[in-house]
């Protein structure tokens, strides 16, 4: 039986917001709808769909749709295609809007009006919101609203999205019946698109001349800042300093909330184990659900801090400049500067990083970025690194200056980055699509002060998205892995540990044969299986394999134990393994969701395991020659 999609449309007229990127469209959307927003995906594509509700002063309930920003109605990226499809009424499961609000950057009419003309030609009821009208006034651009409305044949209203009440005129206009009337299309329709741009361009120029707006007033403040921030020397240097500060903040600020989450999960687990009878149900709830969810949610503070910075940088206009500064570096391995943001996010966690690849217009670049994102050192690796380093790397200074343990962490970070660059380079060198030159064409918008309100709304949405992933896929995986590690139970009179008799134990013993050449014993091999849920779960799994009681601090008790039982080459080999191995099925599941098929996640799984095996093998053999 085939499932037929059924779509429910909430009642109320649908108003779509359309505009160029960086015109303040999302700020207007936030202003109009506040926190009453629903974030989801458009049917069949991984483009974020934001809808909100607005009650007008005349008590009319409207649904407001924030369409992805676009320069024209000829799409370049997935995002832009959605905008075009929705406006044309072609999008699956979407209603054609009842009214289109063209949000226009009042400081850049020259470009924005061309999009307005394109939208107007679609024949939908349409109005123009002159946003950033305050900034235009400051820069000496005086726009005659009535004159512009007359020239365009559309209602025009001024808005200031960054000011409370700056959307009032727009809200009031929604109550006017005439704006909901379809326009009378007397314009000639041209089918030849290139000619269309040209005639639209000429019409815009004519309108601007007529309204005496035909002079250019560039943003000299941004120009001045760029003189420093895009300077050949100071530019890259300030980027490095900025990234360093962000990482510093990510680790130091997140410490308290992370401990809090960890402690509450432990507390909940303790309380539950006291109240529940000692059987497999208790183990399922305590070890599977509570500890499983806790081990992933614990990264939420870091993700939020990192995203807070990314959103602030995005709002301020710096992010595209960072991408510009990194374009040459990324270009040398066949990517563009646009891959920078997803890769940066992956240092907190690959899952939001992979979700962030949606902003990359080129399909090939997006795929490669998803392919290498898991190689960035996510924070789930850090507990594993910390355990192994404190147990095996002596705490001493070399050259009286560098802390050896810190140096090892640094090397591990760079091993991941160089691994990723290497993979991207190979893909550039040996695939046909990799050798093509791809466009960058990235706007560097004027600098603006980021608005706290927009950052908070953005963070709220990202947190929701991440937790929904945790709630679904990650939960199922954690439970499946708990099941593997718990069943079947140990037979009567067994001498070994229960986990050795479970499915995971049996697989682990078999794996040990395969992993022996890279120096892993059977204990490590078994721990790697529950450790597929999330990287740091391997620590508690090792605790289980070494029969540590779960009440004591596993990481602290484990250190001395493994430093006696493992050789140094084994420890180094395990470190190398954790740089590359896809010990996180949630990441794989996210790649499946975002790429829309199974091919990419399977490729990622296979190539990362292969890379990890190779790296560990080399590490083990080389280290064995010394120790």
């Amino acid at each position: 039986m085939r499932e037929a999609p059924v779509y429910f449309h909430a009642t109320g007229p649908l108003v779509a917001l359309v505009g160029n990127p960086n015109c303040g469209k999302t700020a207007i959307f936030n202003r109009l709808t506040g926190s009453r927003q629903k974030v989801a995906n458009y049917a069949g594509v991984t483009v974020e769909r934001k809808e909100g509700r607005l009650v007008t002063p005349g008590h009319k309930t409207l649904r407001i749709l924030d369409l992805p920003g676009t320069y024209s109605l000829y799409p370049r990226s997935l995002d832009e295609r959605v905008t075009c499809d929705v406006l044309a009424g072609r999008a699956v499961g979407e209603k054609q809007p009842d009214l289109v609000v063209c949000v226009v950057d009042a400081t850049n009419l020259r470009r924005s009006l061309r999009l307005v003309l394109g939208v107007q030609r679609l024949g939908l009821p349409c109005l123009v919101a002159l946003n950033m009208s305050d900034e235009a006034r400051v820069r000496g651009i005086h726009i005659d609203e009535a004159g512009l409305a007359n020239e365009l044949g559309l209602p025009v209203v001024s808005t200031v999205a960054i000011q409370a009440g700056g959307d009032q005129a727009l809200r009031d206009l929604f109550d006017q019946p005439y704006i909901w009337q379809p326009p009378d299309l007397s314009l000639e329709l041209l089918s030849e698109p290139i000619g269309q741009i040209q005639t639209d361009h000429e019409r815009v120029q004519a309108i601007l001349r007529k309204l005496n707006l035909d002079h250019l007033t560039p943003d000299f403040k941004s120009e001045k800042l760029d003189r420093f921030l895009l300077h050949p020397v100071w530019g890259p240097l300030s980027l490095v300093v900025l990234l360093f500060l962000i990482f510093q903040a990510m680790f130091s600020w997140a410490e308290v909330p992370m401990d809090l989450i960890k402690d509450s999960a432990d507390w909940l687990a303790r309380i539950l184990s006291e109240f529940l009878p000692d059987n497999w149900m208790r183990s399922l709830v305590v070890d599977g659900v509570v500890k499983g969810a806790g081990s992933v949610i614990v990264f939420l503070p870091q993700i939020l801090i990192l995203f807070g910075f990314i959103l602030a940088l995005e709002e301020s206009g710096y992010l595209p400049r960072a991408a510009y500064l990194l374009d040459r570096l990324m270009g040398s391995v066949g990517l563009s500067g646009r891959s920078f943001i997803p890769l940066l996010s992956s240092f907190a966690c690959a899952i939001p990083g992979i979700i962030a690849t949606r902003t990359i217009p080129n399909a090939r670049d997006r795929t490669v970025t998803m392919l290498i994102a898991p190689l960035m050192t996510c924070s789930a690796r850090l507990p594993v690194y910390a355990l192994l380093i404190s147990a095996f790397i002596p705490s001493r200074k070399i050259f009286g200056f560098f802390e050896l343990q810190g140096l090892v962490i640094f090397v591990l970070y760079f091993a991941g980055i160089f691994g990723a660059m290497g993979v991207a380079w190979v893909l550039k060198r040996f695939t046909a699509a990799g050798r093509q030159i791809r466009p960058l064409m990235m706007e560097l918008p004027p600098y603006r002060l980021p608005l706290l309100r927009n950052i908070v709304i953005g963070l709220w949405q990202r947190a929701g998205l991440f937790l929904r992933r945790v709630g679904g896929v990650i939960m199922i995986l954690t439970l499946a892995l708990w099941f593997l590690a718990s069943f079947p139970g140990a037979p009567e009179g067994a001498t070994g540990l229960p986990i050795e008799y479970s499915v995971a134990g049996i697989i682990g013993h078999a794996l040990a044969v395969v992993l022996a050449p890279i120096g892993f014993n059977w204990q490590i091999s078994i721990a790697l299986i529950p450790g597929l849920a999330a990287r740091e779960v391997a620590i508690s799994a090792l605790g289980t394999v070494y029969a540590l009681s779960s009440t004591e601090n596993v990481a602290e008790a484990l250190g001395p134990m493994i430093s006696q039982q493992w050789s140094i080459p084994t420890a180094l080999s395990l470190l190398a393994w954790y740089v590359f191995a896809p010990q996180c099925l949630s990441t794989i599941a996210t790649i499946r969701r975002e790429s829309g098929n199974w091919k990419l996640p399977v490729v990622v799984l296979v190539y990362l395991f292969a890379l990890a095996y190779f790296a560990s093998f080399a590490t083990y053999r080389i280290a064995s020659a010394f120790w």
Partner: protein
Amino acid sequence: MPDCARQLGELGFLPGEEIVILRRTMPGSDPLVVRIGVSTFALRKAEAACIDLTADHA
């Protein structure tokens, strides 16, 4: 790049507009920072090559 000229047009690189090359941060001037109208764009050299310019020293 067949689509290049068309895409540049969509962004506002159209006949009669004034272009200013603002910055050559990167060695070899790739990518370039240019201003068209009042918008600033980063363009790779290959893209910028699609644009015909006449010098204006005014």
